[in-house]
């Protein structure tokens, strides 16, 4: 557990100078230690990893500077990974963990507030929907994760200003919690009444992830124009069940076994990432394909997909860790530049959102690892294979997105276009991408 650094009690004799480490030096030192430690974990040298972890904990802190925070969460993830080699201990440690859904929702909405990513994604999504639905009288929008009413309120307002008058709008919202959907329904209906738009909200509660969604429930009617909005909802489908966790890090793991495990892993993820033919037996590929097929079967007029644009689905731990280090460094930098260090909300987002994602990326394997972020070009390829055609984003849509980013006030955020998709970056690091698709034939 990361301690406050510097912790005088720990630094009694050995390293008073640690206290004096400048932030930059400490940051570099932390990076180095992190990589060393990750290396140890990757090769199964648990004792060495233990030592490294101890050292990092002296320097890292969840409330320190950016690098300290990042180190804290990464080491927690690495420790978690190590502990998984003792499944009993791991289970016991997590036995009393209670997942409070409302907390997760709250953190999600903090993420929405504190970063422009979701807002830009919504803006671009709405614009794409608006453009695709020009002239349509009946519009049906399916939101794969309906958590922010503001997205659809904005769409309602935009639709009401349409030259030919607003269409009949139906929104189907999918979420795990009934309360969120109720709240959303309430707000949207209120707004629609105010704007005098014929409107209908259909909530769908799906527990345990989108894979349990029953497409019949969506009730897509013939004759209506369908739009699908997927914000960060596709990547969990890449999680494969092939490698159960128990094989992950055997306690006495001979290196051979460990390597074998990694090889299987790499084989699996590789097969999913290199897009073999659709009939591939790999289960991860299967799920993703199945879901995209479901979406394709609905014949949407437009489907807008927002996903992370980072390669966190590498075959090996080190690959993922390195990539994640860069990505989350960028995200933590965003926070550092926009939110004061003492902010509780920032801590919450860092811990409950990013920390959990990092944990998932680093410590989990197989079906447990849901945070399978991939690069945009992989998504493009995958969605194309599923029978969609990239619509590209209009100039106006990009303009709006950029405008929103600029007005956000922090000039680290950038937005660029790549292959007809919008990519939102921090400085030079692409973080999220938005792309718009339609059904082929």
């Amino acid at each position: 557990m990361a301690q406050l650094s510097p912790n005088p009690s720990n630094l009694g004799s050995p390293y008073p100078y640690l206290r004096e480490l400048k932030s930059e030096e400490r940051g570099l030192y932390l990076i180095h230690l992190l990589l060393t430690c990750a290396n140890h974990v990757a090769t199964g040298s648990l004792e060495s990893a233990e030592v490294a972890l101890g050292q990092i904990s002296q320097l890292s802190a969840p409330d320190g500077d950016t690098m300290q925070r990042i180190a804290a969460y990464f080491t927690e993830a690495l420790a978690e990974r190590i502990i998984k080699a003792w499944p009993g201990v791991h289970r016991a440690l997590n036995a009393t963990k209670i997942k409070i859904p409302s907390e997760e929702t709250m953190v999600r909405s903090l993420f929405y507030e504190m970063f422009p990513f979701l807002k830009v994604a919504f803006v671009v999504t709405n614009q794409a929907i608006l453009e695709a639905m020009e002239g349509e009288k009946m519009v049906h929008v399916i939101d794969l994760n309906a958590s922010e009413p503001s997205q659809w309120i904005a769409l309602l307002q935009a639709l009401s200003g349409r030259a030919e008058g607003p269409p009949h709008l139906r929104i189907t919202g999918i979420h795990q919690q009934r309360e969120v959907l109720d709240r959303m329904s309430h707000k949207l209906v209120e707004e629609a009444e105010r704007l005098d738009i014929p409107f209908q909200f259909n909530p769908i509660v799906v527990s345990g992830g989108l894979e349990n969604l029953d497409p019949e429930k969506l009730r897509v009617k013939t004759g209506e124009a369908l739009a699908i909005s997927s914000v960060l909802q596709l990547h969990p489908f890449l999680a494969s069940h092939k490698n159960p966790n128990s094989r992950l890090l055997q306690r006495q793991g001979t290196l051979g076994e460990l390597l074998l495990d990694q090889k299987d892993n790499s084989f699996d993820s590789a097969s999913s990432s290199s897009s073999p033919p659709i009939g591939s037996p790999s289960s991860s590929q299967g799920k993703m394909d199945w879901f995209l097929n479901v979406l394709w079967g609905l014949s949407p007029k437009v489907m807008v997909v927002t996903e992370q644009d980072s390669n966190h689905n590498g075959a090996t731990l080190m690959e993922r860790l390195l990539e994640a280090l860069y990505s989350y460094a960028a995200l933590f930098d965003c926070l550092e530049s926009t939110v004061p260090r003492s902010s509780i909300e920032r801590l919450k987002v860092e811990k409950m959102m990013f920390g959990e994602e990092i944990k998932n990326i680093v410590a989990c394997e197989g079906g447990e690892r849901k945070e399978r972020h991939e690069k945009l070009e992989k998504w493009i390829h995958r969605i194309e294979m599923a029978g969609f055609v990239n619509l590209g984003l209009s100039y106006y849509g990009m303009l709006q997105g950029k405008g929103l980013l600029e007005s956000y006030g922090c000039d680290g955020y950038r937005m660029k276009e790549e292959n007809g998709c919008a990519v939102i970056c921090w400085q030079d690091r692409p973080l999220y991408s938005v792309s718009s698709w339609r059904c082929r034939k």
Partner: protein
Amino acid sequence: MATNRFICEVCNKGFQREQNLQLHRRGHNLPWKLKQKSKTEIPKRKVYLCPEPTCVHHEASRALGDLTGIKKHYSRKHGEKKWKCDKCAKRYAVQSDWKAHSKTCGTREYRCDCGTLFSRRDSFITHRAFCDALAQESARNPPPSLSSLGSHLFAGAGGPANNMTLGISSTAHSSAAADILRLGGSTTGGAGQFDHLLPPSTTTTTTSQQQFRNQPHLSPSSAAFFMQQDQNNSYQPFHHTLMQQQFSSDPNNAAGGGAAAANQLFNLGFFPNSSTNNNNATLFTNNNNNNHSGGGDDQHHHQMMMGSSTGGSVPLFSSSSSSVHQQQMNNMVAHMSATALLQKAAQMGSTTNSNPNATTSASLLRSAFAAGPNHNHNHNNQKSSSSQSSGEKQQHPPPPSLGSFGGSFFGDVDTNNGSNNLHDLMMNSFAAAAGNNNNINNNSSSMFDMEEGNHHNQSSGNNNNGGGSSNNKKLTRDFLGVGHVAAAVRGIAGTATSNISQNQQQQVGAALERSSSLDSERNNNNSMGSHSSFGGNPSFQ
């Protein structure tokens, strides 16, 4: 009663017009095949042409579908308008039109500032966008600092939309700014939708405002909704937190105060090249100057905006953005971002690593970094070895040997003496760092020097990098020389030789004691080296 000639085959409901029947049939969710009526079933439909030769609907291609429709059309277009509304001056040729109008006449009205009356909200909105009168008024006031079309458009739609109820102004969003009061909802209800974006003090975007006005085509957008929303949702906690930072007594400085405070801790002269305390002082005062004087137009503007309005438009949002701005500035001045640190780490390794074939963690970082923003690099070559380093074309794929994997930064694995020296040197360097606030560069370089020095002390040649024969003793000395991390990572059974000496084993044992963390670090690295080998894993107890 006209006949209901069109019957729905599903439920047998009758309709007078075919289009209504089609609309109704949609609701039945018919499967695709049944949706189409085959050609044989439908007899040729009668269409109607307008008898007036000059009319568009006189041509066959623009024929109308039913008799009543064409009759009404003829009256409306070519007939005399006999029906007149009593409330307003509108006249109608068709009685049903007249009836429909008089029901709604006067019930819902929007009046623009220029005096035009609208019954439809959308036409009202569109008109106001371009209304000349409004253009003149807004030209008098400095336009806001929003840079994009969309933001104007939308923040507008969002804002006054909230204010307007049936065109009657509500001053719900009234704020200190007189402008906003006026715009947000004057009694005339015609406040400039887009002008409400003009919080008082601002500087720029006359251009954007004008751009906006020049655009002929406004499609509704949702962009600014989010911006406005931010204000409403009040990222206020953030704002208030900043306000409460006790470091700043200057109310204008509220936003920057917190940031400045937080950064004071780190304000020990982060610039690698700075070498005097003066620099620190300057940095610090610069921060403060920025905060207090609100130096720069942007800051001034932002702060003014902070002060001005709280409701409605941009202010809240930009207040948070202004503090954002200051925060950002302060942070950037005093402290290296994590991204920058990673880049630096990646580069540092390269300077100290002599062997171009080496795959140190620095190079890993570099390749990961290069792969990230610039290339869509596929890291998932599952069996290929060079996933990491292939990002950099100039690197050869690191050979499988893992011997040098014991990339120990600080220590010489073999000789205790050497390591002790190294260790002491490290301590000295850090202590030196402690004493001297500013010479980061010196410190790092001293670290490197020390490492290089030890390098030479090494008996074995310095070739743990990549090449062929793994020599456990030879450890990459550079700061981030994790050695063949890439190789290990690939999980490829390296053919590393394990020079696991007794020393190492002892040291491994010692590693568990917390007596010396650096020692253990060193030992750690030793065992790292040993683990890389296939054979014995002494530290796997």
